């Protein structure tokens, strides 16, 4: 309890409050602007962020992440243009409400839902994280190996994109993680006698290439260049009737979001989709959805904020990032000399509770700021992407140079930028690759340590209760997409037959 209260003392320091505010404002801004997502923004800003105090740096990066969930809503409702993938479903009813002249109501409900969802999730995070961390203290190499393996698989199969492509991307990420000196034998791998590659690829450089440069190059093809006219925002506060109608959806969305956020690969996108689907499924009038149902805004917005918050649990307690943005935070912590995992709570309670408690304050800031700032954000949207593009490009290129004062890093970043751009063009998501790259060393080192303990007997992974259970979950997760594909194919067969019959007529 003392540590929890001390966390509030940490975040109440003016410097930390300022970084919290900067973080949520940057987050909202990038949520509003289509193009760069929170992961790309964190990647680009990492070299700058790591020059400040570690606690302030992580508070700011966390703010960017959950702030983006708020910002994404604004463009979804006003422009039918989701700034964030997790706000795509909000488009359906949010934009319909805006067309009916109720844009303010939609934004108001979204802001309240987001606040409730996030706060619910932070309370559960505060209560459950110490328990998970203390449980994880008993983990040995076999458990960590199994957990990292499950993480890689879930990230690859639950996330967006084709599962086989995601798995290939994840495996290539694991392969990139082996570049450099092998920590067991000291032998060089894939370094091709290069001094710079001998220490391996720098995660920040790789992530800046795959997320930052790739995203910048991809956006150059002017897919977001169309001009949009925002709907007018009138009465922002929803009526009592509307709030009553939205409340159960906010409650359910918060619970769904919390649980899906904890799952690796699930995250805010999956949570918003599942919450919307649940509301439509249990509604007595599902036909209202897509035509301006207030629950269609309340549920996904509560869920994506709850999920954004709960995805901090696996990172802070187990050292396993649940999604691409968490991978960036993981990288930031490593660069700052902090290893996320079960020991974090004991070794750096100031950082742990400072970051967790900054979310309470950050969310209040977001609730207070989001509605009055709508007008400013709409105006910012009028800034042409052509003007923002070179600024982003320069931040990226100068930022990566400053990590090690090395032009070699710029070339590595450009190379990964090309890889990321080409991946996006042929339907491979860079997220699984980055996450697997992060987990690569953890996975390899623990598999090899466990094999040494088991005297080379791989069945040792299965006979230990925790690693055995995790691997059983791994098997279920691996089989799930196959079962789902077979089920879909069977279900699709009558439709296809029907279509064929139609075309024959």
């Amino acid at each position: 309890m003392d540590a929890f209260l001390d966390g509030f003392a940490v975040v109440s320091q003016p410097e930390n409050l300022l970084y919290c505010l900067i973080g949520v404002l940057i987050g909202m801004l990038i949520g509003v602007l289509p193009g760069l997502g929170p992961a790309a923004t964190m990647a680009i800003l990492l070299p700058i962020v790591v020059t400040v105090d570690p606690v302030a740096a992580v508070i700011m990066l966390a703010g960017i992440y959950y702030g983006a969930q708020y910002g994404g809503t604004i463009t979804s409702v006003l422009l039918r243009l989701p700034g964030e993938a997790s706000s795509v479903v909000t488009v359906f009813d949010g934009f319909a409400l805006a067309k009916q002249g109720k844009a303010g109501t939609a934004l108001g409900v979204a802001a309240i839902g987001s606040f409730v969802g996030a706060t619910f999730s932070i309370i559960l995070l505060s209560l459950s994280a110490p328990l998970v961390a203390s449980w994880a203290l008993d983990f040995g190499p076999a458990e960590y190996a199994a957990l990292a393996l499950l993480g890689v698989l879930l990230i690859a199969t639950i996330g967006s994109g084709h599962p086989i492509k995601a798995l290939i991307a994840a495996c290539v990420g694991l392969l990139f993680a082996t570049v450099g000196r092998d920590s067991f034998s000291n032998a060089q791998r894939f370094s091709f006698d290069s001094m710079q590659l001998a220490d391996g690829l720098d995660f920040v450089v790789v992530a800046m290439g795959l997320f930052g440069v790739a995203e910048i190059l991809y956006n150059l093809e002017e897919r977001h260049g169309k001009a949009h006219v925002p709907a007018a925002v009138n009465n922002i506060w929803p009526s009592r009737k509307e709030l009553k109608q939205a409340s159960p959806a906010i409650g359910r969305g918060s619970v769904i979001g919390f649980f899906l956020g904890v799952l690796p690969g699930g995250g805010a996108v999956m949570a918003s989709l599942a919450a919307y689907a649940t509301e439509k499924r249990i509604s007595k009038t599902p036909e209202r959805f897509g035509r301006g149902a207030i629950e269609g805004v309340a549920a996904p917005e509560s869920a994506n904020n709850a999920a954004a918050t709960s995805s901090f649990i696996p990172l802070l307690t187990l050292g396993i990032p649940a999604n691409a943005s968490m991978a960036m935070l993981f990288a930031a912590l490593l660069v700052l000399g902090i290893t996320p995992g079960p020991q974090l709570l004991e070794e750096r309670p100031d950082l742990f509770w400072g970051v967790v408690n900054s979310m309470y304050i950050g969310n209040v800031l977001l609730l207070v700021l989001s509605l009055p700032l709508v007008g400013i954000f709409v105006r910012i949207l009028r800034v042409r992407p052509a003007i923002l593009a070179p600024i982003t490009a320069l931040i990226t290129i100068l930022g990566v140079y400053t990590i090690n004062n090395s032009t070699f890093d710029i070339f590595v970043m450009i190379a990964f930028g090309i890889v990321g751009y080409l991946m996006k063009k042929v339907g491979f998501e860079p997220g699984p690759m980055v996450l697997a790259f992060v987990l690569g060393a953890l996975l390899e080192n623990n598999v090899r340590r466990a094999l040494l303990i088991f005297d080379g007997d791989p069945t040792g992974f299965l006979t230990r209760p925790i690693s055995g259970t995790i691997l059983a979950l791994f098997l279920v997760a691996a089989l799930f997409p196959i079962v789902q594909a077979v089920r879909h194919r069977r279900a699709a067969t009558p439709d296809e037959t029907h279509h064929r019959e139609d075309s024959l007529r």
Partner: protein
Amino acid sequence: MSDEHSRPGGGRGDILAELEAEVAHELEEQRPPAGGPAYQVAAALVTLAVGVLGAVLAYGYGLGSLRRPGPGLWPFVISTAIIALSVVLLVVGRRLTDSEQFSRASVLPLVGLVTFVGFAFLLPVIGFEIPALLLSIVWLRFLGGESWRSTIAVSVGTVAAFYALFLYGLGIPLPHLF
């Protein structure tokens, strides 16, 4: 989310699948036309080549045994998985619609890339000011279609702001002329 994986499975009443399809459709509107089987096959062949190269090199590092794993064992296992998955993709991936055609607009990223490489070469030689100015001019005027007036104003303003931020604000020793 815009590939067959997220398309409706056809299961009636499966609202989540319907929704995913609807989301895919929303995003589809912003995308250029799909690349077709040639793109899918090319992608699978590239990843297959990565897997084969990885496996060959890893084998050379020494596999060892499970009791005493060599430095090559882990990358060999990963490379083998890449090979197997790439073969599966080669077989089942032809009909996927999640690739994007390269078009005339794809020249723009190429030009952007050239400016990045040019910047990286020039930075240690002449400092960051002139390369940053040149990069901004190319991006604003030629890639972004801005007027000369706004190009010059934004470029000079951006370089000045970065000068102040990196050299004075953050105290980072960037190579610089002035």
